[in-house]
């Protein structure tokens, strides 16, 4: 290929020279160039290396179907691999490089793979490296995993940056009456028709300019028509987006769009996102996505310098490049003639091979006048040259097929094997395209059950004038579907060529073994497809997976039809009988960054802070994540680490008093005449007779009898309850209560309202907790032991007139209270409490100390109530009332859930008191460290009260069965195995004397 830039013509701006680098060499192009056109104008031919064989590859197209010029763009953190050079707009300073090659794409040591081509046929790796004796006898797939790493390194694509992506991506939501995908003649006319009818139209175009195939036309009339249509669209108020790909269609008219905002800008405004990921809900969708030109399989059809015909036209007319001097154009249809004539007029020597025997008069005259050398019944057989084209052997059609017929020197081969309408978006909806024999392509079915209309060459309408009508016709359907009035234009039928296409998928002559590529991007050859057939792969879906045909980044845009045709031929069937593969989103690759949008780092998930967050920080809290919540972990004093801090907090709380932010607990107001009945049904223990001014600990089960959650519920009045749930299950419990009341128990007059955000709370725990609260309430008498016994509830006023509800409940095992105030008073509450607690030598404590104290007491949390545990497993079987029915009461009695040897909650301590052990360890019987063991450890802590490490966990049959035995806490990949003893989970103050005191 000896391409050269023409002195005039094209849509590039010759006044704007752009400097860029290719593999480190500085080059220039013009504004309006793509990276591919600029490289072509600079005489670069080898731009990539193929996937398996490392064959040299060059530019094969001028669009999204590019399979050869796949390069890496950008450097450092912004290195973007596998970019199609044909879609990358040139900008000043763009740095591009070849990939999948070492040391460079021009000289690649990996090309040695090509010499062993016959070993790299379909399924080669699997056959060779998986389970093949004697290499892998008895070894399963272990060795394969090793080979695979090496194979993957040799085969492949570009390498992404290992650094974090510095760019910002946005998610945007959009709505429209009519979404028009594609801005070629059909798309423009569809959008204009719909917009003129007053509809809200969104027109999206993947290219940087609107116009579609208009941009590839040389004549003035086309340019004028394009400008005219766009001007009218602007006037009609249609929204138009360029550099935006509709990559997928989904249910209910939802379309996914990728808008590339800054990929073409040298130094973008830093406030702009790189990409925008649009979710558009369209009432009607018009798919005017055009058609892609197909290749033909013939010998060495992947050499740099073999392109599709439309690309030749595009480089000539849009980019002002004559892509070759001696050009062979090979076709089986009319579409190549205009290009052949234009190339000849631009100064190239052009031979035109047409596989067909008869050519219409008008086509003959089109090329005849321009000096094109026309050969009928002729087709390309084999390309000569390795890093470029230097000649072509051709074949002529005879009675028994093709036969070789001489050769010709040339530097460029343009091929048209027909056109495939882009039916991808329709296929995304599960709508199967149908084979149109006359046009030799798949088109959408006549009847589609959704408001999606195909228009233009996407509906196999080949003539530009007909495409305009086709767009108009689609738009009138959309207008009518939305209740508007429009005179229905008849849609042009598929077709538009003067003489029919002659299907041509492969050119081969007997006796010549040539490497003919079907899917050049994945190095799938015609021989691979036939091999798959010989080995019994009948289904296209299997063929695809076995050969990887169509599974490269182009998603089968280039090779699918040829693969199908070869398979059909091998089976002696027609193409529609073999079927088509289903296209799935995305149409072209979507960056991971766009998928994630802004949901990164701190925005990866919502962050919940309690209203005393700032107060906690001001008082020295180190925070930790508990679900979505940011909670105080420990309050370190000078010189303390976490271990010292939480041990001190635990000791201080048990000795004097500690305060802990418990706002994150779920809080639900349960109100109404039937609230008591409702609670009695959802809790396992009786609630029917809970007096006003009392709280009760309750457990709720799921329908299937497994524990769902636990918490306390406070009775504030005859009809008003205040329920607390665990932090982890707050949402789930709320949903379940709403479901019960709105679906199953519609007769119950109960309202449930989440008040988690409305109330802020602090635990006040320890022997001096009452003293602290006495100092805080306006009337200290409410705090006396008689007025406020264990499990009592009061609603009172704190000093300064702060409304407050307090319950005497304990999670720590000490005498303790939970005090709640409206959230706005959170800091005031903590100020009051701390002012009273600090002089008593009290402390603030965090989650770590809270955990330590609850483990000492054997109180369960989400770590234990993990969705597998029954109420008996948790040692709380006495909480299940035998006298009433409740949610889960029937199912908890299933035999498997009642087995005595189920894992039960136990306490754990090390045999050697100086030893520590980890949560997550497996509990095994001594001498039997294998398999699932006998149980597991859910939580561990250092117990200041006992002076050694303790844990909670589950072990089969409970602690009584393991008394006096040595058990192994197995933790093979972290700590190793530790000998432990199993004890009662109630490790500290088992009789609760401290709590009632």
């Amino acid at each position: 290929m000896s391409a050269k830039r023409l002195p005039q013509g094209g849509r590039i701006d010759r006044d704007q020279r752009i400097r860029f680098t290719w593999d480190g060499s500085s080059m220039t192009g013009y504004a309006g160039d793509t990276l591919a056109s600029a490289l072509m104008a600079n005489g670069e031919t080898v731009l990539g290396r193929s996937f398996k064989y490392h064959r040299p590859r060059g530019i094969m197209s001028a669009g999204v179907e590019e399979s050869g010029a796949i390069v890496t763009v950008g450097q450092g953190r912004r290195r973007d691999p596998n970019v199609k050079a044909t879609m990358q707009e040139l900008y000043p300073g763009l740095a591009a490089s070849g990939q999948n090659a070492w040391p460079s794409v021009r000289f690649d040591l990996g090309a040695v793979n090509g010499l062993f081509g016959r070993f790299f046929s379909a399924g080669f790796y699997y056959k060779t490296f998986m389970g093949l004796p004697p290499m892998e006898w008895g070894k399963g797939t272990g060795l394969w995993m090793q080979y695979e790493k090496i194979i993957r390194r040799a085969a492949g694509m570009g390498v992404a940056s290992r650094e974090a992506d510095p760019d910002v991506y946005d998610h945007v939501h959009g709505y429209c009456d009519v979404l028009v995908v594609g801005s070629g003649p059909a798309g423009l006319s569809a959008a204009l028709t719909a917009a003129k009818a007053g509809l809200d139209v969104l027109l999206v175009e993947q290219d940087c300019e609107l116009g579609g195939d208009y941009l590839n036309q040389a004549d003035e009339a086309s340019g004028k028509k394009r400008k005219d249509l766009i001007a009218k669209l602007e006037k009609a108020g249609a929204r138009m987006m360029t550099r935006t790909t509709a990559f997928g269609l989904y249910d209910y008219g939802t379309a996914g769009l990728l808008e590339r905002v800054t990929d073409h800008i040298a130094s973008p405004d830093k406030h702009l996102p790189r990409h925008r990921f649009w979710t558009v809900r369209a009432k009607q969708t018009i798919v005017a996505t055009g058609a892609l030109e197909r290749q033909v399989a013939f010998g060495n059809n992947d050499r740099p310098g073999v392109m599709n015909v439309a690309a030749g036209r595009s480089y000539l007319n849009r980019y002002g490049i004559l892509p070759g001097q001696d050009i062979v154009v090979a076709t089986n249809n009319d579409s190549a003639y205009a290009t052949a004539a234009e190339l000849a007029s631009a100064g190239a020597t052009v031979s035109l091979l047409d596989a067909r025997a008869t050519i219409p008069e008008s086509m003959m005259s089109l090329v005849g006048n321009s000096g094109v050398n026309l050969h009928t019944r002729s087709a390309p057989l084999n390309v000569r040259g390795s890093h470029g084209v230097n000649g072509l052997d051709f074949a002529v059609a005879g009675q028994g097929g093709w036969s070789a017929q001489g050769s010709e020197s040339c530097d460029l081969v343009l091929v048209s094997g027909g056109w495939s309408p882009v039916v991808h978006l329709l296929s995304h909806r599960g709508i199967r395209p149908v084979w149109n024999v006359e046009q030799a392509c798949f088109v959408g079915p006549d009847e589609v059950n959704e408001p999606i209309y195909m228009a233009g060459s996407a509906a196999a309408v080949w003539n530009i004038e007909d495409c305009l009508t086709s767009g108009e016709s689609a738009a009138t359907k959309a207008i009518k579907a939305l209740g508007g009035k429009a005179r229905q234009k008849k849609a042009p039928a598929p077709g538009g060529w003067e003489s029919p296409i002659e299907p041509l998928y492969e050119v081969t002559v007997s006796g010549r073994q040539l490497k003919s590529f079907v899917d050049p991007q994945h190095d799938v050859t015609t021989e691979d497809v036939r091999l798959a057939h010989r080995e019994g792969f009948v289904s296209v879906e299997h063929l695809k997976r076995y050969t990887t045909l169509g599974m490269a980044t182009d998603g089968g845009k280039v090779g699918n039809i040829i693969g199908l045709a070869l398979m059909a031929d091998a089976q002696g069937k027609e193409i529609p009988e073999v079927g088509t593969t289903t296209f799935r989103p995305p149409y072209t690759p979507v960056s991971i960054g766009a998928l994630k949008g802004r949901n990164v780092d701190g925005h990866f998930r919502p962050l919940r802070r309690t209203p005393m967050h700032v107060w906690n920080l001001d008082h020295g809290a180190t925070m930790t994540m508990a679900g979505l919540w940011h909670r105080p972990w420990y309050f370190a004093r000078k010189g303390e680490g976490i271990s010292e801090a939480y041990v001190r907090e635990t000791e201080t709380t048990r000795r004097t008093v500690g305060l802990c932010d418990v706002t994150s607990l779920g809080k639900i107001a349960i109100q109404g005449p039937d609230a008591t009945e409702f609670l009695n049904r959802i809790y396992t223990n009786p609630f029917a007779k809970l007096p006003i001014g009392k709280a009760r600990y309750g457990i709720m089960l799921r329908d299937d009898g497994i524990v769902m959650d636990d918490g306390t519920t406070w009775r504030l009045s005859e009809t008003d309850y205040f329920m607390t749930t665990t932090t982890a299950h707050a949402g789930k419990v709320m949903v379940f209560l709403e479901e019960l009341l709105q679906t199953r128990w519609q007769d119950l007059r109960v309202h449930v309202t989440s008040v988690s955000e409305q109330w802020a709370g602090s635990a006040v725990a320890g022997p001096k907790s009452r003293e602290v609260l006495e100092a805080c309430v306006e009337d200290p008498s409410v705090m006396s032991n008689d007025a406020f016994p264990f499990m009592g509830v009061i609603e009172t006023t704190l000093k300064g007139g702060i409304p407050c509800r307090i319950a005497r409940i304990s999670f720590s095992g000490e005498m303790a209270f939970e005090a709640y105030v409206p959230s706005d008073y959170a800091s005031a509450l903590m100020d009051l409490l701390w002012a009273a607690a600090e002089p008593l030598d009290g402390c603030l404590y965090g989650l770590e100390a809270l955990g330590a104290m609850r483990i000492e007491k054997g109180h369960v949390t989400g770590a234990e109530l993990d969705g597998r545990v029954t109420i008996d497993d948790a040692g709380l079987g006495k909480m299940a009332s035998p006298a009433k029915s409740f949610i889960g009461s029937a199912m908890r009695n299933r035999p498997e859930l009642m087995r005595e040897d189920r894992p039960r909650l136990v306490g754990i301590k090390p045999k050697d008191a100086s030893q520590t052990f980890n949560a997550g360890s497996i509990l095994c019987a001594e001498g039997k460290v294998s398999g699932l063991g006998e149980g597991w450890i859910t939580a561990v802590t250092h117990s200041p009260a006992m002076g050694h490490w303790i844990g909670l966990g589950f072990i089969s049959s409970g602690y009584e069965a393991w008394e006096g035995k040595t058990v192994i806490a197995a933790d093979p990949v972290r700590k190793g195995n530790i000998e432990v003893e199993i004890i009662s989970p109630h490790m500290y103050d088992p009789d609760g004397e401290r709590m009632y005191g």
Partner: protein
Amino acid sequence: MIRINCPFCGERDHTEFSYGGDASIVYPELDASMEEWHDAIFMRENIRGMQSETWHHANGCRMWLVVERDTMTHEIQSVRPAHKGNAAVLSTTDTGGEQ
């Protein structure tokens, strides 16, 4: 993206809702037998076609809805409040709800 026409809020993306389950299940009384509960909890028809199911407008009005949806096409035939009282109020106060 399924779009659900919430009778209280209007048409919204299905991502605002969470799927509940089969709306045709009649849950037994709490004191019913284990067998009855077993069937209610675990036995499900795998329907191909129109299915009545519950959805919770979790990120909206928090109402439970009964949605008739075609499991093949996602076509939604009707949406109504699960609670009959709410449904009755809606039907007398406005026309909304049904698609």
